[in-house]
């Protein structure tokens, strides 16, 4: 390496990067250090992963349950969806969304609008941003407090039921405490906050925040693709609950809803969670596919741009791999802990 004239050591991290990153939440500028560039990449990776995980979970659970539906058409649709996404490479979907779908969208003047606050066009997805986050922070705080209250309530209800045998409607109350009230809090906070709404000025939208097409394409591909695998995990978990369990619960006179809540879900979740966690990990690792369409995540900005500009390949590769390995290790530690804990619970 010395012969090839390649510098070594990690000092390059504090050098000015001079690399432009078109999409960042960290306020990064090209005059910042390479370390700041790496941080921007990490934030972008986590951003697209987090949003995709939420959406993939929602789609995945819906499709997985739909596949088990007794409605033949619904389960056929779900099967079709799963077999479609699982048998095509993820890179295909990423390129398809980016070059096939988003590139075919109209120019800003003819955008698709949703309630006149969100606009989708060839330049990306324009969303409104709050000008003041105090209200939203309060709503978030309120939600956390409500969830804590619900946890305490559940404990109290369990204790009382064990002591006196009297039941407490934990679920309906929980739906209000953890579902309705937080939504109301956020709606109230949203109405009280002034929003910076994107407005068409000339040829483009001004104001708000623009999610670049790279982000939208990667997000769409990751969430729909991973949803197919999550759906299978959900289906497998629910099918692993023996029919006898359900029959026995029904024979005891429990309602269908209670059978699902008290018998099916508690037994299915321990089976679903390990594969679900590994799908989440896969999704985070797969966010590196963003490098193919120049979404500025870790691999694109660090293993790509920073490596080209500094030439310190060994250090850069080592850092990148270390980041992903730390993440994977953390997830597998969690999984071991979860499995060990679950093993003690079942007899």
């Amino acid at each position, binding site marked *: *390496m010395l012969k090839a004239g390649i510098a070594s050591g990690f000092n390059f991290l504090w050098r000015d990067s001079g690399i432009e990153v078109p999409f960042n939440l960290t306020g990064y500028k090209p005059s910042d250090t390479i370390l700041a560039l790496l941080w921007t990449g990490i934030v972008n990776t986590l951003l697209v992963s987090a949003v995709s995980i939420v959406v993939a979970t929602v789609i995945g659970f819906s499709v997985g349950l739909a596949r088990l539906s*007794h*409605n*033949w*058409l*619904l389960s056929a*649709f779900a099967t079709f969806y799963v*077999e*479609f996404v*699982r*048998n*095509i*490479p*993820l*890179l*295909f979907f990423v*390129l*398809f969304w980016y*070059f*096939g779908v988003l*590139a*075919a969208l109209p120019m800003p003047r003819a955008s698709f609008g949703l309630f006149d606050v969100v606009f989708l066009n060839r330049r990306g997805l324009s969303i409104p941003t709050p000008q003041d986050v105090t209200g939203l922070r309060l709503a978030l705080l309120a939600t956390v407090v409500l969830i804590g209250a619900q946890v305490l309530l559940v404990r109290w209800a369990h204790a009382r039921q064990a002591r006196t045998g009297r039941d407490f409607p934990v679920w309906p109350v929980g739906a209000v405490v953890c579902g309705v009230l937080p939504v109301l809090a956020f709606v109230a906070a949203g109405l009280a906050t002034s929003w910076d709404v994107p407005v068409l000025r000339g040829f483009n939208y001004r104001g708000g925040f623009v999610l670049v097409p790279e982000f939208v394409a990667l997000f769409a591909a990751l969430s729909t693709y991973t949803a197919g695998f999550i759906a299978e995990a959900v289906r497998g978990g629910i099918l692993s609950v023996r029919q006898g369990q359900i029959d026995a619960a029904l024979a005891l006179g429990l309602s269908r809803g209670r059978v699902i809540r008290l018998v099916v879900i508690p037994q299915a979740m321990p089976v679903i969670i390990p594969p679900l966690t590994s799908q989440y990990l896969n999704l985070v*690792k*797969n966010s*590196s*596919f963003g*490098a*193919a369409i120049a979404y500025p995540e870790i*691999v694109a900005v660090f*293993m790509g741009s920073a*490596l080209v500009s500094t030439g310190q*390949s*060994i250090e850069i*590769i080592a850092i*990148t*791999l270390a980041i*992903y*390995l730390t*993440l*994977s*290790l953390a997830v*597998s530690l969690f999984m071991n802990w979860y499995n060990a804990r679950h093993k003690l619970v079942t007899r």
Partner: protein
Amino acid sequence: MIQTLRRRLFATPIDAVVTILGLYIAWRIAVPLVHWLVLDATWHGTTREDCKGDGACWVFIRARFGQFMYGQYPVPERWRVDVVAVLFVLVGAALSRRNLPHRGRLALAATIVLPPLGVVLLHGAWGTGLRLVETREWGGLMLTLFLTLYAGLIAGPLGVLLALGRRSRLPLIRFVSVVFIEFWRGVPIITVIFLASILLPLIMPTGIDVDRLARAVIGLAFVIAAYMAEAVRGGLQALPDGQTEAAQALGLGYWRIQRMIVLPQALRIALPAMTNEFISLFKSTTLVLIVSIFDLLGIAQAALADPAWVGMNMEAYVFAGAIYWFACFGMSQWSRLREKRLRTAHDR
């Protein structure tokens, strides 16, 4: 019949709403899709001007078909690719016959002889009298299959060894296997392909140049070997200890026990999981696009830049996507069928 339909589609009022809504959505999607794909599509012609309808322009695929299959492989030499493909298919078909005498030995011989022969035929030169075709010119579906097959041929045996190593009683071997497996499983494949294409030339002694394509094959093979190892481990764990103990009592050595008792049973159990890994390898080969190697998806992507065929994105994606889908779906169905057959054979 009507009774069944009613029960499966219109059991409750909500069901009826779902069914009707579903049918409506399916109709709204299917009709334009069929129109675009088939009815309004242009099938015959040679240039972009031949495509006048609103549908797909399959003329584009027709004009580019050779590239989609062979990449930039020189046209007069393409017969060599066909020969290699036919060779692999024939040998594979012959070996899958259950009543073939000496099947195991023949399979071993084929795995030793065939892959190098394939490389020599495709590459040419090296004293064969065939024209040199550098790997830079390989591409399209041929390259996808090459990457899958050769990375798979390395990953399969390596995965089995790693799985055995992970259960070894020697701490050092166990440690090395665990580190290898967890390392490659913990990082994204894209970084591994980068890693292989940047680091391999650096760590090789000067003078030895590892081919770009070989680097990609090695990178893919290592990652998939780690996943294969976990699939095989599942099979090994499912096997009762009594099998090994009985074999030890008979006085067999470690390798003979593995080869004659453990692996034949464990691999059979692990086969569905291994097929899944093979499918994911097939899908992962698309990532070589990152280091400018043009497999099927890469060629389709590159074809979009052709000024003579502007706006053919959908046609290219649908064609490439359909090939991937049929290949992966075929493999998973094969695996399911085999599993079923094995289970019934076992139950009898």
